[in-house]
């Protein structure tokens, strides 16, 4: 059934209520204007932990709710509606998935309860160039002492600033472009040789550029099989992509709702501009696109809950479609708001900015369309 379960519906409602109350768009604006170093509110993060959301993908024995990806997506969707900034996708979704599915008992015991409690923030570092390309990972991990020595660069690492640890994709073998030879390591954020350069992004949130210069990790810091962690990485990325798709769906829905409101209330030529047929037809088309994207997001989330390692196709569908639709929704929102939509004084531009970053992160629509084409053999 492509519908929410009763529990999921309740979570969605709770999330909507809480976030519109505790993390409205004005919060992002305030963080931005204060040039906040973290780019998100620690108070909000703690509150999300108290609600159990940070443990949504963590087994109960580690203090989590084990509520599933669909539930995580609903939180993301509601965060998209209010542009709530938090390390939710990197930590509660991606890092939690990586450690749960690839970590040993020690790692799980160390990190999962901490994530669930909102006490640990963990970023995931994959990209090394301007476009997402996990198999292209070149950062080298060379056997050394009891572990590995990491050398290389990472870019577009969301939430690395202020993180306790960073999960780094590295190459223990093979060549860039190959799935073979990839490994994942948990690196302490204060490790020697690790430089974290904060980069302020267009959405007023952080991404970091990392330089790893002889960073030493133990064999025990590996997640998943050394040299064979590509499947685990794909699972982690899939979870993150589904979260981003849901967030973009929320952004599209909210910016559309605001646009509809503006169309009803703004008067020009003696009538509400929403009575102009050309705008009506564009709004109606956009409505259809948003509904279609919602279905893809729902299917992607459900697929992850059925099989977290085999949902790549539907997750890519969700990320590609939600990305394109969010792009259309925010573009139409600005255009239909007219001049006021171009000003920083109203929120529409903030939705446009976040949609762009969420669209790029973990693969843009082209990337995922390409995956779909390959999986469909054309």
């Amino acid at each position, binding site marked *: *059934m*492509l*519908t929410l379960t009763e529990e999921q519906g309740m979570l969605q409602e709770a999330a909507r209520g809480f976030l519109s109350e505790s993390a409205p768009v004005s919060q992002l604006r305030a963080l931005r204007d204060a040039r906040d170093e973290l780019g998100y509110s620690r108070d909000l993060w703690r509150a999300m932990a108290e609600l159990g959301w940070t443990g949504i993908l963590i087994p109960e024995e580690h203090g989590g709710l084990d509520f599933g990806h669909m539930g995580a997506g609903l939180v993301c969707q509601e965060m998209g509606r209010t542009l709530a900034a938090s390390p939710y996708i990197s930590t509660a979704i991606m890092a939690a998935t990586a450690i749960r599915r690839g970590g040993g008992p020690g790692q799980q015991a160390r990190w999962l309860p901490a994530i669930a409690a909102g006490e640990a923030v963990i970023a995931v570092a994959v990209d090394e160039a301007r476009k997402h390309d996990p198999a292209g990972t070149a950062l080298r991990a060379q056997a050394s002492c009891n572990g590995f020595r990491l050398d290389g660069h990472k870019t577009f690492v969301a939430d690395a600033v202020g993180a306790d640890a960073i999960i780094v994709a590295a190459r223990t073998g093979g060549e860039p472009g190959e799935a073979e030879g990839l490994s994942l390591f948990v690196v302490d954020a204060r490790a020697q040789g690790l430089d974290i350069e904060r980069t302020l992004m267009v959405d007023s949130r952080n991404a970091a550029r990392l330089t790893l210069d002889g960073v030493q990790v133990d064999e025990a810091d590996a997640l998943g099989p050394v040299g064979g962690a590509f499947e685990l990485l794909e699972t982690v990325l899939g979870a993150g992509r589904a979260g981003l798709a849901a967030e973009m769906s929320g952004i599209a829905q909210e910016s559309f709702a605001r646009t*509809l409101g503006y*169309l*009803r209330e703004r008067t020009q030529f003696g*009538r*509400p501009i*929403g*009575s*102009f*047929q050309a705008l*009506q*037809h564009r*709004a*109606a*088309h956009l*409505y*259809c696109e948003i*509904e*279609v*994207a*919602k*279905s*893809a997001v*729902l*299917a992607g989330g459900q697929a992850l809950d059925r099989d977290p390692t085999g949902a790549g196709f539907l997750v890519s*569908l969700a990320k*590609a*479609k939600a990305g*394109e639709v969010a792009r259309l929704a925010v573009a139409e929102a600005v255009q239909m708001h007219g001049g006021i939509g171009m000003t920083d004084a109203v929120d529409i531009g903030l939705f446009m900015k976040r949609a762009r970053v969420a669209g790029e992160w973990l693969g843009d629509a082209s990337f995922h*369309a*390409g995956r*779909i*084409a390959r999986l*469909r*053999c*054309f």
Partner: protein
Amino acid sequence: MSELDAFRHEVRLWLDAHCPAPMRELTRGEEDIVWGGRRWAFRSEAERVWLERMAERGFTVPTWPKAYGGAGLSRDEERVLREEMARIGARSPLESFGIWMLGPALLKFGNEAQKREHLPRIARGEIRWCQGYSEPNAGSDLASLQTRAEDRGDHWVVNGQKVWTSYADQADWIFCLVRTDPAAPKHRGISFVLFDMATPGVSTRPIRLISGKSPFCETFFDDVRVPKENLVGELNRGWDIAKYLLTHEREMIGGGAGGLLGTRPIGEVVAELAGSDGEGISDPLLRADVMRAEIDTLAFALTMDRLRDEAAGGQGIGARSAMLKYYGTELNKRRTELMLRAAGSDGLEWEGERSGGGRLARDWLRAKGNSIEGGTSEVMLGIIAKAILELPGA
């Protein structure tokens, strides 16, 4: 065992025993559909027997009351019947506008005599119906129709012209919108009447489309005498029935997503047409457009599933049928464009065996009508803007 399981068991046994083997073969499309009617010539004994047996059980119209030729099934039981038919690949015994359109309208708006007269014959495939709605000057603005029915005491005399009457030349009866009060506001002077196509003064002329032959006809009424008892519902209230049927039709087209349902993935089809030999579609613009169409088609198919699931949850689909109609037909136009691009000059042949009688080109042209028939895309967008988005009127 639940009641539904018991029903399933019973249906399965019955189908196994009664569905003739030839009726379990894949249909080849149009040429295997049984439309019924006075002039119907069964193409095989199996076809005849299958219809007879199914009609006897009420399974041609399973949810209609038994009194009118149905089986009185619940929605769940109907679903079980469909599933069990699908399980053995059983063909539909009968399709008709009577089943799809008139039946639901009569059940809702007809009087007892009308139901008893018409519904069982529809269920048994004895009478084939056509639908007299559009007129040359009443397309998107259907309510401006001009076909007039003048009151002559115990009967009306109907004069006027309908267009886009599917299979009018093969139908036995027509359900028809006529203007019974020319002085009233346009929505208030319309009535819904039924009459025999064999009545003197009725004539039809097939419409040739840009894609070639079509089931559509122009239908002319020249002093056609229609008994008063053939009025369905109240006098001058035919627009209520028309609206009901238009929504019903839109949901059907939308539910079938403008013909997209059950088609092969566009990427696969195009790769095959383009002869890509498994190396991917090499034309970069075509490839990009196919990628986008594939994504939209997949996401749209999920949307149909979602709306169906939500409807099952009692939320209904309502005005969102306009979305399905709009999106599905526009997608189908994209699909046929892409297929034709992939096929290149081969796809532009118009006749002959090699091209299947110009199948690709004709499908491409025919698909252009999808976003016009049953309410244009523009009308659908208007419905969405008003009924769903609640945007203000001009």
